[in-house]
């Protein structure tokens, strides 16, 4: 039932607010009624007791899957455990109640955490400059692409209006490049999952002085490490372009290889993936952007600096006149950055490395086990990174069972669906990423379930096609949702 349908017809007593003084409309001195909302202009806000609101929300919450309740082998999303300590410590009153424009005398503690996080991210990625301000991965991408634009402009290189993006890339990559005013050309992937180098070289010959840069994820969204990475960065640089690193898959290589060493000029990180800050049903994220010396001058503001007296301060256009500017009203998702700082300190230099090692171990273990069960791997000759792809083409042909069907059936067994139909170039694919925080027992349960479902596919495909059977709702009519649009409740 909707919260509105539970509402009392009339307002009920509320004691959240201690009235400063009794307020009657006529006492709103100086406020002409022409400015005011009229009695007829009602909102749909419900009249409910605190207990009713809590029951409604708690019951609703119990209909969700979450990391705290379910395994989430969701490729490219890195759904790892979100430590409680990080959340609690970021919620300390001195941090939580701090106004973003408070005087720097009262923000040194907060700023010191952000400054130290900057230092940690720099060494982790092998870059030389960082700004924490982008509020999500896509905004970090935008910052990066705008910095590349500023770089070419500053050199008087005005013709460069094309971004090369592999066909396997996240949708945000092409959407970002076009938001920044660039044209996008897709680069094909060859059969073993690496970028098709000969096609790339051809494109570079055709468009040579129009190439602004290339956006790349490594390990790629295909769950494999791009083996020709040095050749790619080299030939893009020779063509005068710059390299953008999409940090979505950084959880596979912490302490193993660094984007800066691979030759990337700019990158973003997803702290809500790699640094375990909560996904919160779709956000907030945090997408710090990191650069090498070529792009340092253009980083978005603000950046946390430290002066000769050890005092922290926020660098703005005054210190960074060539900055691309500001992406958010204040300092980005500062509270999320605190959680990432807490996570980084809890793991430390060896813990970060170990996180990647076990993430990759877990993925390779699952991949091997699934292959043994008879699932088809997209790239059987390759190592898994922190994730890998299986394709259900065979099952679709033989039993008319799609990747969607299998994903929905997993929900019945209490496992969140892997990422489906992404990357687009592998048909009927499931992208599986267990993360390092799943135990061997949990992985073995996943294998056991996959084995059961494979059996069901062969013996009772109709049952699988109808899944899920045990969740609060069955498959939803999304065509109806789009055609008979109902996106806000109103009193009839």
């Amino acid at each position, binding site marked *: 039932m909707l919260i509105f349908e539970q509402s009392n017809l009339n307002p009920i007593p509320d004691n959240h607010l201690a009235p400063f003084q009794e307020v009657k409309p006529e006492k709103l001195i100086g406020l002409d009624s022409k400015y005011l909302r009229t009695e007829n202009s009602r909102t749909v806000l419900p009249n409910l007791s605190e207990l009713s609101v809590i029951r409604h929300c708690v019951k609703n919450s119990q209909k969700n899957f979450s990391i*705290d309740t379910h395994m989430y082998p969701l490729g490219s999303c890195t759904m790892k455990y979100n430590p409680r300590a990080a959340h609690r410590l970021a919620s300390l009153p001195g941090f939580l109640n701090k106004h973003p424009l408070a005087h720097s005398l009262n923000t040194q503690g907060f700023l010191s955490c952000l400054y130290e996080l900057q230092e940690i991210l720099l060494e982790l990625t092998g870059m030389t400059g960082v700004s924490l301000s982008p509020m999500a991965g896509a905004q970090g991408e935008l910052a990066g692409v705008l910095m590349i634009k500023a770089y070419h402009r500053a050199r008087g290189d005005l013709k460069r209006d094309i971004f090369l993006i592999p066909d396997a890339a996240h949708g945000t990559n092409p959407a970002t490049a076009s938001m920044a005013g660039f044209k996008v050309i897709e680069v094909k992937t060859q059969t073993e999952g690496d970028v098709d180098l000969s096609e790339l070289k051809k494109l570079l010959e055709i468009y040579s002085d129009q190439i602004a840069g290339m956006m790349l994820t490594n390990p790629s969204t295909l769950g494999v490490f791009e083996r020709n990475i040095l050749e790619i960065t080299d030939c893009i640089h020779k063509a005068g372009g710059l390299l953008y690193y999409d940090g979505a898959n950084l959880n596979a290589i912490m302490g193993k290889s660094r984007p800066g060493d691979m030759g990337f000029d700019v990158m973003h990180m997803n702290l809500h993936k790699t640094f375990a800050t909560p996904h919160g*049903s779709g956000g907030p994220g945090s997408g710090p952007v990191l650069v090498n010396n070529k792009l340092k001058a253009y980083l978005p503001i603000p950046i946390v600096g430290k002066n000769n007296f050890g005092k922290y301060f926020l660098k703005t256009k005054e210190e960074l006149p060539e900055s691309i500017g500001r992406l958010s*009203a204040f300092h980005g998702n500062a509270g999320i950055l605190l959680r990432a700082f807490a996570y980084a300190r809890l793991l430390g230099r060896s813990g970060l490395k170990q996180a990647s090692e076990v993430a990759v171990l877990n993925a390779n273990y699952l991949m091997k086990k699934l292959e043994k069960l008879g699932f088809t791997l997209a790239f059987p000759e390759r190592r898994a990174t922190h994730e890998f792809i299986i394709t259900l083409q065979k099952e679709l042909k033989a039993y008319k069972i799609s990747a969607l069907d299998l994903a929905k059936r997993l929900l019945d067994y209490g496992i969140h669906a892997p990422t489906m139909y992404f990357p687009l170039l592998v048909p009927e694919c499931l992208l599986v990423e267990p993360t390092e925080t799943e135990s061997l027992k949990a992985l073995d349960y996943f294998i056991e379930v996959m084995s059961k479902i494979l059996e069901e596919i062969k013996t009772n495909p109709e049952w699988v096609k109808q899944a899920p059977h045990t969740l609060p709702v069955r498959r939803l009519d999304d065509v109806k949702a789009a055609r008979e649009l109902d996106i806000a409740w109103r009193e009839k």
Partner: protein
Amino acid sequence: MPFVPHSKADINAMLSTIGVDQIEDLFDEIPLVIKARPFEKIPENISESELTRLMTARANEDGVDLNFIGAGAYEHYIPWAVWDIVSRGEIMTSYTPYQAEASQGNLQMIYEYQSMISSLMGLDCSNASLYDGASGLAEAILMAVRIQLDKPKKILILGDVSPNYLEVLHVLLPHQGIEIDLDLNLNLDKNIKNLYAAVVIVQPSFLGLIQPVDVLTDWAHAAGALVIALVNPIAMSLLKPPGEWSAAENLDKGADIACGEAQPLGVPLAFGGPYLGFICCKKKYVRQMPGRIVGRTIDLEGKEGFCLTLQAREQHIRRAKATSNICTNQGLLVAAAMVYMSLLGETGLKQVAKQCYLNALALREKLIQIDGVKLIHTGPWFHEFAVSMPLPIDKIREELAREGIQAGIEVNMPGFSNVLLICSTEVHTSLDHDRYVNALKYVLSQAKIESCFNKNTELDGVTGAEKILC
């Protein structure tokens, strides 16, 4: 402590299943020359108890202020229940609700949020959030330009808007060829027929002023522009909502798009984020809206349920042709706003707005009694106002900050010096106001004594007592 649950035996068993000797072998596709060396600067791990000491000390060093800054981020009382519910693992640690069957709770809460915020704005539709108010305004402008394909890619902003918001617009908009004009004086004699794709009206303005939104809206519509309302959602429970802006009945009534910062609805200040950008619009424009949208539908058995809808607008489907590149949004804050609005209800929210108004009024009255403190405008204001001070604002801010009081922020206004923008919300008591006023009086009087003292040291033969008396 990487939260890894494996024993050594587990790891060995897994390695043997995979058929390698050591974990390092799993990374053998990485070319040797780009293998990372051991980290040197990243500190070694510390225990949870050590981290608690460290961060508690830093939070205590910053302290909890008596805050009179607004400027786009507002301190309101948040009932404990809000974050108690939102911090539940089932909400906080869940993923984007792409798998609708496994996300009905979140989807319903987003649907309920969309219903509440759109009705608060007097409009038909809302999306499931944008990053913050500044990027929300940028997205609203991009949306208006997409709708007004036959109009110039130009936007007019009426009245004072946050300088930080303007900076964000200047980063996000020029790449689409969009130009922005500002009109601080609300000059309605100008003929702008077909000159602008949209006009932005700010309510209340950055300097806290309540604007004559009805005439501004009619004027913009008559010139063929869409109206984008940049509003404070708390104020909209008391003031006329964007969907009803208009003095006439015959025109296309109401703002077409409303956007802004929904942080005041249950989201803590947290040094600037995460906050909650919102965007609402008339139904006819919904297909140009950026970001996720939740719709109500039915399942196979005819049972009511919720799912993401109109996804063909979004980057994961439309890629380079999407309405926006936004993917991750501010879902958790949507839940907080939904719970906050549900707990307060319509009367509670209006009560908050009224108390904000009266508190700012009460503080204003006390402040202008002080010698040298002058109001810049004649009002009406909502909960924020600008005054000129007889002392540099830096000095006032610093002296009050030493007492744990955030005095406000300095704003640059042509023709005025030492302008302080001050906000008072329902959280303040009259004792808080007295503490602020007394601290300010003390700083001003100290400054007076200092300046006298500096003058008098040049005079010989003046006694200490006389110096103070001057």
